[in-house]
Structure formats: structure tokens, C-alpha cells
């Protein structure tokens, strides 16, 4: 019906007809958004997370769809808009200055003592071999106030903003990731729920002792059968008939600080009666559980590849009586609590890892500058130069992402989950690569225990796995992006129902698509946002964003809501998104340095330009692949290969020798 009305105009005709029926007609059928009401069908955490935020699983899909469409249309997040092929500069240009003079002064005073402590008191090699943080170091950290960095000052903490926290966590990351996780599991996720969702009574009761380190906290979500699929947890918390307490039963695994914590943020399924239908379903609720409640036990410390100093243990809940006032947030709103906690702490990882990379680069460069082979210092050889340059760029991007996101958060940005997820993926993979290449530059010496880089490498492996595996986070980035782009298309479709009233919007969209089809630029530009010396890199970025936006739209139209299952596609889309955000972030940072006339500005310009050229190539390659007929065949091949090897429980091809 809609199509016929509009096709009277021949100009609109060609373009409109390209939108297949899937997206026309009633909202009920349209795009990814509808999947909201089918949440139960999708087990993956990514889909769940995408679907449950920001508006909850709704009963009235139609109004929710419209509201979301309106919200998405006004999002300030760069990543959200990038999926629509648009450039939202508010959160990325200029590079945020998130500290006022007083905060900056205070932070400067803190950096010295913290660095000194880690240089002189903390012994990372000892912590690693003891598989525990030395007692006197723990005491020193508690005295130092390191356990309550973001707790408000009136509750015994330091009340640091995200940017200040990031700067200190960077120092920890540069010295000892095992200690970093002990501190992070405690405050970045362990009791963050109380900071974000706790009521006044809960905050006043728990935060002071947590800030001083008298009590350690732990975040308990993962179970033996529920990792990425967090919504499938089986720990239960059943409300007593009197309504005064819950009885909790279940077991959690791989809990950081599990063996030493006193306060646990635990996620359990609570049976809830739907007031409208009378049906009882299990929903996740977050609880504050004290070891002193009784029934809480923990297992021995796990033996791990890295971050050995951090305690990792199983935690068991046997008929634990949890008072009803220990519910954190809303009953049944636990999944949102969990996702918000993880989202809120993600920038910390990028900050810590940027510090780790810096210190590892120092070791590699020190070796390269002093080692002579074939008559020259090895840093004069191209192979080594490329490694050092790449390591430097990866560190520069990570650092820029960390402080851009923390700056955005401190400035009150409401939407940063895609960027935070991107930063976690990027930082963990970049750090792994940098450590790996550092060992390579150092040669045999890198493999030896003493220089300490092998320990850093072992410590880093887990960062690609915990707090949301990078694979899941890639799905999250892509699906989140598709959802927003889908909403945009939906709102466009709505506009088409009333073409006269929305003539401007429609005309704009038509012009954009016509230009795209003709291979012309759609008018997007970064001019005015970036320093003129970076114009070329800016152009590459804009071109990449345009092509990205276009392929997103094509993919949405082609797959509709089934895009959720196309993981080969989603991974590549996420990789593009990561590269694009990285380009924009370094453009912003380098622009600022050039504008400030920093002595290192030209060096940063080089980092930025080099990064943008290679990132652009990667994005273009992926965009091409996603549109090629060959890609479908490749993905199918891989699917078949995997099926065969899984069925055979091993490689299928017979031995070349025949036996």
C-alpha cells in the first residue's frame, strides 16, 4: 500500500523499490527491532544485551519502536551514527578535556606516590611466583587508598572521576596486571553495582569498609554452564513466604577475589509472577551477599596461565539467607545491572593496558637501541623499525580511546557502550600483539623470565576472554549498530508514509543515495573538526565511513532480522567499526596536539596518518568482501569445514602418508 502511493513520483520510484517488503508494512514485521519481543529465542548475550537496552523488553512493540527510533535519531554517540553513515562529532571532536584545574592538580599529586609505590614496594615477579599479592604490598595498597578510588570522599574513598581513575589504573597496568585485576575485580566490577544501583542505606553500610580495603569485593556472574550466555545462569534466589529474605543456592566459577572477598555482587534467577498473565518466569536479580550470612564458601585458588597473583576461585552458595534489602537495583532487573557494571568499567581496561604497552615498549626499545648484530644496532634494521612503529601506533590508539571514553563519561555522555566495547576489544588485542612483538624484538632474552615481558604476555592472555569475550563483544558492537541503523531506516520508512510532511528528509535521503550510486561524496566532511594538516587522513576516514554506512544499509535490507545469525558478517562489520573509531580517535588526538603546538605534534601526525592509511585499506577490503558473491561461498565453506571436523572430533583429512 505504501509503495504504490509513493511510486507515483518517478524520482522516488527507482530508489524506493529497492526496499523490499520486509521493511514495509506494519512495524510488527520490521527489522531487527521486532526481535525485542522474541528475546527468549536468542541465547547469546550479545543479542540479549542489544535487545534489552535501553527500553526494556516491551509489550507494546509499536510505541517502543517509535520511541527508540526517535532516540536513535538523536544519539550523540559517534559509533551509533557511523552505522548510519553519518558523522556525529559532539563526543569525538575536540578531544575531551575532562579535568578542571583543581582535578588536574589533585591528580598530579596522586601520580607520584602511586608510581613510587609500584616501583619500590610492589614486586611483580614475587607476586607471580607466590601466586598471591604479598601481604605487605596488600597492606600498603590499602593504606594508600587504592581500594576505594571512585568511592565518594564522604564514604571513605577518593571520589575520583573516571579520567582520574584511568590515569592511576594506567600506572598499575604498567607495573603489575595481577595487582591490577585484584584491584579491578574489587572496585571496577566487584562493588561497582553498589555505586551505580545501591540505595542510600546500602551505600552507607558497605562502601566505607570496601573503600578502606577492610572488606574485599567480588563480582559473581559466571557459572560452570554459563559464560558468554550469561542469561542462562542457574543460581537461584527464592523469596521466602514472609517476604523478608531470599534463599540462594548455586555455584559460581572463576570468580576473581572469590577466595578473599567478604562482599559479593551475585546474580541469581528469581521466580517472578507476571501481574498481567499470572505466569511465573525466572528473571535475573542482583544481590549483595556477605560471606558472614553463612552458607557462602569458596574453593582453592585456581592455577592459571597468568595474573597468578590475582585470586581466582569457585564460590558456592548453600541455602544462603540473603535479606530482602540486599537486592541491588530492581528485582528482575539483574541483567541490566550486570551489563551496566561491565559497561561502566570497560574504559579502565583500555587505560591499564595502554600503561602496560608503554612499559613493554620501553623494554623492547632499550634492547633494540643497545643490541648490535651484523655490525649495527638492530634498531637500524627495517624489520625491527616496523615492529617498533606498529607497537607505538597500537599504544597511541589505545591510549587515545581510553581517555576519550573516560572524558566522554565524565562529561555526562549517556551513550558510550559501543565505544567502550570497541576499546576493550582493541586494547586487549593490541596489548597482546605489542607484548608478543616486544618479545620478538628482544629475541631469546624476551623469552627469559628476568626481563619480565614473558610474565606480561601470560598476564595479558585473559584480557581477550574475561569481561565479555572479544568474540561476543564484536557481535554486540555489530548488532547494536545494526539495531540503530535499522531504527533509522524504520523512521525513514515512517516518513515515507507521509511524504509531503517529510519532504525534506526524503529529499535528503534520495540525494544521498543518488550521489552514492554515482560514486560522488555525499557531502560528509570532517573539515573544521580536525586540524588542516590532517586533511588527507580526514578524507580517508570520511570515505570509509560513507562506504561503511552504505554496506550496513545493504546488509540490513538483505538479511533483515536474520542478520543476528550471520556471525561471519557481524565479525567483519565489527572489525570495520573498530578501525573507524580508531581512525577518528587518533584524528582527534593528533588534531589537538597540532593545535597546541606540542613539540611531539609532528610525530603524532605521522602516527595518525600511518594508522589511517592502513585502517582505510582494511575497512575497504572488508566492505568489498561483505558485498562480494564470493564471501557467501567462503562463509559456507567454513561452516562445512567446521561441521566435518566437529563431527570427526578432529581433523578429517587422512594423513599424507596414509597412516
Amino acid at each position, binding site marked *: 500500500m505504501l509503495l504504490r502511493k509513493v511510486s507515483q513520483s518517478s524520482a522516488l520510484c527507482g530508489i524506493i523499490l529497492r526496499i523490499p517488503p520486509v521493511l514495509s508494512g506494519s512495524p510488527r514485521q520490521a527489522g531487527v527491532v521486532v526481535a525485542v519481543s522474541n528475546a527468549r529465542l536468542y541465547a547469546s548475550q550479545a543479542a540479549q544485551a542489544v535487545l534489552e537496552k535501553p527500553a526494556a523488553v516491551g509489550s507494546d512493540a509499536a510505541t517502543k519502536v517509535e520511541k527508540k527510533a526517535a532516540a536513535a535519531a538523536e544519539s550523540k554517540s559517534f559509533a551509533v551514527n557511523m552505522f548510519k553513515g553519518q558523522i556525529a562529532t559532539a563526543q569525538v571532536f575536540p578531544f575531551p578535556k575532562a579535568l578542571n584545574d583543581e582535578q588536574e592538580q*589533585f591528580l*598530579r*599529586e*596522586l601520580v*607520584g*606516590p*602511586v608510581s*613510587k*609505590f609500584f616501583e619500590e*614496594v610492589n614486586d611483580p615477579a614475587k607476586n607471580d611466583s607466590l601466586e598471591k599479592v604479598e601481604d605487605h604490598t596488600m597492606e*600498603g595498597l590499602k*593504606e*594508600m*587508598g*587504592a581500594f576505594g*578510588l571512585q568511592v565518594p*570522599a564522604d564514604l571513605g574513598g*577518593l571520589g575520583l572521576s573516571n579520567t582520574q581513575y584511568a590515569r592511576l589504573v594506567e600506572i598499575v597496568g604498567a607495573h603489575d596486571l595481577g595487582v591490577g585485576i585484584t584491584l579491578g575485580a574489587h572496585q571496577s566490577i566487584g562493588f561497582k553495582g553498589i555505586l551505580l544501583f545501591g540505595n542510600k542505606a546500602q551505600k552507607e553500610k558497605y562502601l566505607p569498609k570496601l573503600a578502606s580495603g577492610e572488606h574485599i569485593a567480588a563480582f559473581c556472574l559466571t557459572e560452570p554452564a554459563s559464560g558468554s550466555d550469561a542469561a542462562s545462569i542457574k543460581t537461584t534466589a527464592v523469596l521466602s513466604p514472609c517476604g523478608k529474605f531470599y534463599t540462594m543456592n548455586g555455584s559460581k566459577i572463576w570468580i576473581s577475589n572469590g577466595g578473599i572477598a567478604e562482599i559479593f555482587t551475585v546474580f541469581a534467577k528469581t521466580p517472578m509472577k507476571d501481574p498481567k498473565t499470572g505466569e511465573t518466569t525466572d528473571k535475573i536479580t542482583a544481590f549483595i551477599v556477605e560471606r558472614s550470612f553463612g552458607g557462602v564458601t569458596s574453593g582453592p585458588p585456581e592455577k592459571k596461565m597468568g595474573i597468578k597473583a590475582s585470586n581466582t576461585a569457585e564460590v558456592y552458595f548453600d541455602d544462603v539467607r540473603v535479606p530482602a534489602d540486599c537486592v541491588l537495583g530492581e528485582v528482575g532487573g539483574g541483567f541490566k545491572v550486570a551489563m551496566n557494571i561491565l559497561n561502566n568499567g570497560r574504559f579502565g581496561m583500555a587505560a591499564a593496558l595502554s600503561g602496560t604497552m608503554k612499559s613493554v615498549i620501553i623494554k623492547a626499545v632499550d634492547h633494540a637501541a643497545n643490541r648490535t648484530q651484523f655490525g649495527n644496532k638492530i634498531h637500524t634494521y627495517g624489520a625491527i623499525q616496523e615492529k617498533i612503529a606498529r607497537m607505538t601506533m597500537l599504544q597511541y590508539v589505545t591510549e587515545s580511546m581510553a581517555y576519550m571514553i573516560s572524558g566522554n563519561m565524565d562529561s555526562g555522555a549517556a551513550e558510550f557502550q559501543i565505544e567502550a566495547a570497541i576499546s576493550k576489544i582493541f586494547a586487549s588485542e593490541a596489548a597482546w600483539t605489542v607484548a608478543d612483538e616486544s618479545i620478538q624484538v628482544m629475541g631469546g632474552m624476551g623469552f627469559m623470565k628476568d626481563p619480565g615481558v614473558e610474565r606480561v604476555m601470560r598476564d595479558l592472555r585473559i584480557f581477550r576472554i574475561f569481561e565479555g569475550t572479544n568474540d561476543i563483544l564484536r557481535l554486540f558492537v555489530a548488532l547494536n549498530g545494526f539495531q540503530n541503523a535499522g531504527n533509522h531506516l524504520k523512521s525513514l520508512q515512517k516518513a515515507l508514509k507521509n511524504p509531503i510532511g517529510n519532504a525534506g528528509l526524503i529529499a535528503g535521503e534520495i540525494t544521498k543515495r543518488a550521489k552514492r550510486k554515482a560514486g560522488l561524496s555525499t557531502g560528509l566532511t570532517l573539515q573544521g573538526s580536525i586540524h588542516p594538516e590532517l586533511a588527507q587522513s580526514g578524507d580517508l576516514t570520511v570515505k570509509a565511513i560513507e562506504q561503511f554506512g552504505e554496506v550496513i544499509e545493504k546488509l540490513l535490507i538483505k538479511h533483515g532480522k536474520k542478520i543476528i545469525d550471520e556471525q561471519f558478517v557481524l565479525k567483519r562489520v565489527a572489525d570495520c567499526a573498530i578501525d573507524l573509531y580508531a581512525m577518528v580517535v587518533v584524528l582527534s588526538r593528533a588534531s589537538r596536539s597540532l593545535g597546541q603546538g606540542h613539540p611531539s605534534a609532528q610525530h603524532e601526525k605521522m602516527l595518525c596518518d600511518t594508522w589511517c592509511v592502513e585502517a582505510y585499506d582494511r575497512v575497504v577490503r572488508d566492505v568489498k568482501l561483505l558485498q562480494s558473491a564470493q564471501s557467501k561461498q567462503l562463509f559456507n565453506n567454513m561452516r562445512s569445514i567446521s561441521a566435518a571436523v566437529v563431527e570427526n572430533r578432529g581433523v578429517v583429512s587422512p594423513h599424507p602418508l596414509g597412516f
Partner: protein
Amino acid sequence: MSGRVLVGVKRVIDYAVKIRVKPDHTGVVTDGVKHSMNPFCEIAVEEAVKLKEKKLIKEVVAVSCGPQQSQETIRTALAMGADRGIHVEVSGKDYDSLGPLQVSKILAALAKKEEAQLIILGKQAIDDDCNQTGQMTAALLDWPQGTFASEVSLEAEKIKVVREIDGGLETIKINTPAVLTADLRLNTPRYATLPNIMKAKKKKIANVKPADLGVDLTSRLEVLRVDEPPQREAGVKVETVEDLVAKLKDTGKI
């Protein structure tokens, strides 16, 4: 003895930094270089705070002479436990030529103004290595001095000081008021904890000008030139004494 202790703290280039001479040879590069409290001053602050914790003295006042940035050094002292600070503002050319004579005049004037009973300083600063300020201050005030202190104990109206001297350790008893200078083994300075740094923000730092204290800052010294120490050259191994003598003759040493 209860009363007020003045502790002098100096802002110097951090001990871990590689020092470079300025191209014009008038001094060393300080711009953008990491600075921190002189290590011996840290020991002095620690000693003063310890005395206060033992309730042997009432108030610890941290003093620093220098430009705006000296306030950071005072803040560190406050974070370690000093009660309040005094920043004597000296900048520009005056700061370049500021030396022990001027500082000791300032400290003497402040000690009188603040009615201090004890002045504790570091034995020397790691940038100029003068080892004079404590001694000069005591002389100007006509107070006894306990320098190179590795142990300090307050007894009634006297102070027992164990001094590190070339021959070993010397124990002396001096009257108060007095000037002490801290040596390396006097104590191990505490780490400024982050909560203490936060509390230190509320402590007061008074601003004073040398002119207010009636102190004349003119220097009697003029720095002519600053150079790096000569590059250490490689040594040569010789087999016999004859060779040694021959080599020494060759290079004109004998």
C-alpha cells in the same frame, strides 16, 4: 618539650632523571623535567611528623623557598603529616641565584616569627650538594646544631643527637632551641597515601615574600659556567711495571 617545628623542604630535580646541561652552559635543563622533594628533606619531614605522633612537639610547619611550583613540594609534606605550610615566593633571577646563605637568612627570620623551637632540615640538597644551610641557619640564630643526624631523641629540655661522622658515630647533647640536619639513616620516609593527599588539600599554605621578612636576597656568588663532567675514557691494561712507567711518561703524567 612541646612546641613548633619548622621543616625546610626543597624542590629539586628528581633523583632518577638524567641531568643535561643547557646549551648556553648557564645551568642544567629544568623545563619539563620531573621534580620532587629532596630526599633528605623527606627524611626531615618524616622525623618531624614522628615527633608529633609521639606527642613530643605540637605543630609541624613545612617551609619552601622558590617559585609557584614549590607549593607542590609543600603539599607533599602536608600529605606526609605536616600541619601547615609557608611558601616563600622567590622566582626568576632571584631564584637562579638563591643559595644557602639566602635560605638560611629566610629560615632564621621565619623561626623567630613563628617562635619555633626546632628546625629540621635535610643535610644537603641533591642538586647543589652544598651542605651549608643547616649550619648557617644555626649560626645566624646563634642556636646549637646537630648535623648529619642518624638518631634523634628529645630528653627534657635537651636533644640527644647521634651524628654520622667520618670516624664513625658521635653522640652529642644540645640545648633547645636547635637546628638539626637529617642524614640518610635517620628514618625511612612514609609513602604519602592518597587519602592523606586528599586531606592535605584542606591544610593551609601561607604566602610570604622575602622582603616581608626583611631578607636581602643578593648573592655573593656568580656562576660563570656549567659543564658536564669529562667523559670517562677507557682504561688500558699493562703487563709489567716497566710498561706502566713507560705509558705514564708517554702521556705526560710523569
